[in-house]
């Protein structure tokens, strides 16, 4: 085998910085949000860097990439970047070009926004486009939700920033476990086992060890395994480890909504998101139930939270029972934790609101 060139790592990021950033690296004094989607950073040397942030659907074609490259050539001397939420940022050293760039982006249908107290891009996963374990789709729901919440992307009228993310199974690739609103695909049926192929394609000890509730045990007679249905909570881990265990169920796979996660340390520390709605049906192509639920939670939060208050801070101030009351969401047995550390989530005080 010819010696391939390996272990060279990614290109050094400094090679791709615009000259204005290279010159002012580590010297930034302050920044301002000029208007939704436009930031200006001012350096101690007096240099000003304008950033125009535009939405992207994350899943993009090479033609889209070439189009934004053309825009970067035209307005930013060929420099752009992607944010950690898959927005595109055009980096301009010339502030007079900002409005022309925005006009051209708008004309192309690429929205400018996602700054400040807005709903910026939705961090999401593969879904039915590429993955083999999803319980729902990613791109489809994201498009439907962002269509409905579009006004919040291009404005900054929320009490605080609101992060929405989506994962299509509870591997939770991405940020669903720590987002203000999270959309998560779930299964609701016990997997079916293909006993004929299991012993050929699966490592049985790995399979039994993959179950968080120990519902799987070997069945030496069949050279296979059996699943105790009453112990199974349909996580799908076993399917990840073994292709002969089938969990995907078109009828019963569903979507759950979680709220109140955050990752920053501002004011209150990071929080995990918690279950708000245990089940909404998979209803492609527009997922109206999911879209309406997310929109409803956003609107109730926007109407009730104090300025500067993230979802988690708002819920903790008013308490979870009030959250369910003002949102009108149903509190069910599904909301009560029954896993390893369940006890820590129960109320161990007499303080509560009627």
């Amino acid at each position: 085998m010819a010696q391939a060139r390996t272990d060279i790592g990614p290109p050094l990021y400094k090679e791709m910085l615009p000259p204005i950033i290279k010159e002012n690296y580590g010297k930034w004094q302050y920044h301002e949000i000029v208007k939704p989607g436009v930031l200006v950073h001012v350096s101690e040397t007096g240099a000003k860097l304008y950033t125009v942030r535009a939405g992207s659907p994350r899943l993009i074609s090479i033609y889209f990439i070439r189009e934004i490259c053309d825009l970067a050539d035209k307005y930013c001397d060929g420099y752009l970047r992607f944010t950690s939420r898959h927005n595109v940022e055009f980096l301009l050293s010339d502030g007079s070009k900002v409005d022309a760039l925005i006009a051209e982006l708008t004309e192309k249908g690429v929205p400018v926004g996602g700054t400040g107290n807005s709903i910026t891009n939705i961090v999401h996963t593969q879904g039915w486009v590429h993955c083999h374990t999803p319980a729902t789709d990613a791109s489809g729901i994201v498009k439907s939700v962002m269509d409905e919440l579009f006004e919040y992307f291009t404005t900054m009228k929320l009490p605080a920033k609101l992060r929405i993310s989506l994962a299509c199974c509870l591997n939770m690739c991405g940020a669903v476990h720590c987002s203000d609103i999270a959309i998560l695909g779930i299964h609701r049926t016990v997997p079916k086992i293909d006993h004929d192929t299991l012993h050929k394609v699966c490592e049985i000890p790995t399979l039994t060890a993959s179950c968080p509730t120990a519902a799987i045990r070997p069945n030496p007679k069949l050279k296979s395994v059996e699943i105790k249905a009453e112990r199974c909570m349909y996580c799908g881990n076993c399917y990840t480890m073994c292709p002969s265990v089938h969990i995907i169920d078109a009828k019963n796979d569903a979507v759950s909504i979680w709220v109140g996660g955050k990752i920053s340390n501002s004011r209150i520390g990071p929080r995990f998101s918690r279950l708000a709605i245990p089940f909404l049906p998979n209803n492609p192509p527009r997922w109206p139930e999911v879209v309406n639920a997310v929109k409803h939670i956003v609107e109730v939060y926007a109407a009730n939270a104090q300025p500067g208050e993230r979802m988690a801070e708002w819920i903790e101030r008013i308490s979870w029972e009030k959250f369910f009351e003002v949102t009108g969401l149903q509190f069910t047995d599904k909301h009560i934790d029954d896993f390893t550390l369940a006890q820590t989530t129960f109320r161990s005080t007499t303080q509560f609101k009627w």
Partner: protein
Amino acid sequence: MAFIEINGQQFEVDEDGFLLNPDTWIEDVAKYFCKEEGIDELTEDHWKVIKYLRDYFFQFGIAPMVRKLCKDTGYSLKGIYELFPTGPAKGACKLAGLPKPTGCV
């Protein structure tokens, strides 16, 4: 599922070319697979790793962890990659007729 033919014998393989049933493995399977995994000729060292993987799999029902493989055979991971350019999972396990590795690979 696809079949490959080695010396007139049929073997069922999956879309990545892994043998579907480890029990049907014969040494010719490893010889057949080695070209596509970037190995010109199977040496004593290759056979040592393949035999070890098969013994371990039939004793414990799983493929060994990489650290276990290196410790027991005496090859460093670098050495394993020199023997099997596509690595211990895609290369060595495939030649040994073990099930395809699963999980987020």
